């Protein structure tokens, strides 16, 4: 496994001094696969590395700079498109970190633009985005209806001219999840970045990231999300965070995220048996950048659906998708 090597190198970038060529190959492959190569390059900084490694890290930083520039431009375009609606546009995840210059944004890969808007504004937001050149990606009526009825976001849209995706959220977990975070409170307490854009409060940023990592999804790419959490935790008051997490029904998730972040990226933590299973899933990546531990990954894939919906609904959903030819592995 080389994911542990990646984690160690992010935690203690000085440790890369001991790597041989094989070690570097494994580290670079894992970092690319986990989309942490830019973050790694940032962490290693100007430390001495083998001559063949330096340009690889420089390229990764160049890519990260471009990602950030593109992400900020997308945020600017979305703000422009939604300016007439007189409501806050809350940036989520990578774009927010980059816009606010947070440590979690340094070298971070940024994919889609994620924004949070009040649920009652979803219709006008959708219309405004369509008007400004975004269009639907999913052409399957079942998927579209599923998103609208059960998800925490609109079906993804892509901008026809710029080829960039936008995810419009009205809350941070699917409506079918056990937990129901208070999205209205998140929006009410959002903090400004610029005149047009804001982001979640420091505590809510962590609640959102922990919910995304541990109460939703199958933990694919989870090392990056956990790195976000590790960075976001810096300087946040533990009591205020715990209280806020409780309000969203996410206290166990936030606490687990803190333990995992400390264990993998920080000064260590006592892990529960369940924590260790999650950590094993997060670290399932080998020196060629391949995913390993197939059964464990499949178990987490099943769990992601279990978390998302009650059993009868899950059965119906899986049957519908299976008939359409979707296979999980």
């Amino acid at each position: 496994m080389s994911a542990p090597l990646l984690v160690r190198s992010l935690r203690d970038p000085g440790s890369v001094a001991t790597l041989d060529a094989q070690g570097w190959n494994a580290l670079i492959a894992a970092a690319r696969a986990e989309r942490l190569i830019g973050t790694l390059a940032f962490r290693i900084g100007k430390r001495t590395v083998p001559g063949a490694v330096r340009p690889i890290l420089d390229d990764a930083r160049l890519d990260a700079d471009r990602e950030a520039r593109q992400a900020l431009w997308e945020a600017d375009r979305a703000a422009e498109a939604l300016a007439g609606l007189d409501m806050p546009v809350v940036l989520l995840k990578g774009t927010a970190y980059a816009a606010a210059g947070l440590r979690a944004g340094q070298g971070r890969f940024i994919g889609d633009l994620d924004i949070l808007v009040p649920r009652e504004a979803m219709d006008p937001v959708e219309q405004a985005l369509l008007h400004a050149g975004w269009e639907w990606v999913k052409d399957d009526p079942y998927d579209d209806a599923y998103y609208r009825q059960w998800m925490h976001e609109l079906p993804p849209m892509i901008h026809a001219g710029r080829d960039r995706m936008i995810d419009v959220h009205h809350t941070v977990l699917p409506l079918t999840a056990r937990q129901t975070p208070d999205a209205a409170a998140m929006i009410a307490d959002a903090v400004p970045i610029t005149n047009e854009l804001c982001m979640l409060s420091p505590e809510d940023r962590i609640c959102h990231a922990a919910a995304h990592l541990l109460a939703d999804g199958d933990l694919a790419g989870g090392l990056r999300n956990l790195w976000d959490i590790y960075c976001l935790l810096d300087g946040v008051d533990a009591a205020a965070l715990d209280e806020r997490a409780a309000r969203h029904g996410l206290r166990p998730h936030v606490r687990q995220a803190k333990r995992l972040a400390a264990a993998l990226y920080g000064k260590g933590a006592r892990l529960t048996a369940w924590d260790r299973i999650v950590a094993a899933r997060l670290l399932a990546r080998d020196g060629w950048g391949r995913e390993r531990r197939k059964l464990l990954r499949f178990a987490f894939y099943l769990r992601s659906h279990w978390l998302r919906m009650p059993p009868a609904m899950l059965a119906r959903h899986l049957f519908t998708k299976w008939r359409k030819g979707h296979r999980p592995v």
Partner: protein
Amino acid sequence: MKHALSLKIGPATFRIGSAWRQPVEALAALYADYPAPSVEVADFTVRLEPAGPLRRWLRPSIFITGDHGLADAAPMSLSHGLLAAEMGMNLQMALGWRRHLLLHASSVEKDGRALVMTGESGSGKSTLAAQLGERGWRLMGDEFALLDLATGMVFPFPRLVSLKNRAIDVLAAEVREDRMGPLLAGTAKGDIRHLVPNGDAIRRMDKGAMPALLLFPRFGHQTDVRAVGQGEVFMRLTQASTNYVALGEPGFDALTHFVRNVPARAIDFSSGEEAIALVERLWEEPA
């Protein structure tokens, strides 16, 4: 992975891992004369994986991936493993290379100056470059020309030349048999045979050259030569580049400099000999 090999082609190093022995053996044989990578840290990892749980043994088929991959890439038969490995390396370059502006073009060099030829697949640019490479020119590459962002020089990427269909016999008639790879029949692009570039091309694969002429070849038409305006050249080269957008302003500057300084012609031809004569004539003409 079970079978692995490292290769250096021009400025890029690759670590290729395969679930099967055959693709790695085929690569090792054809790249035998290339210098071994001096450092073992690779710029890119390429993986040839079974396309499904049983596909290692049962009707073996290859999923090509690596540091950079396409989720919807079509699986390939193990009998085309050599082609899969080559495509894997091309994929890494196309999606991941940032140290030059990458032009989907063939290039050859003479007297320290480079001729760059770009066009769609089937335009004849590969075949023409391979033929010129046997006629006193140095083959720099049949797939990618690497434009240096600072100096404006073109650098070689002399991987194996991928000869398709009718081009196979043309080149097989000109070179020693041991420079030709196995016939890969019935690929998505028809029959393919790889050609090992000659010793000069391999020995000087780190040597760049200033571009002196850009051609847009088109095989299968009446002989013709047309001037191409700078605006059109610029647009066509942005389309021929896989990393133009990723490079941002330095990419724009390098391409603008290239377009302003390198004369461009579109050439049509109906045979290889005609094309070669045309190229030699245009090369001697003052720009």
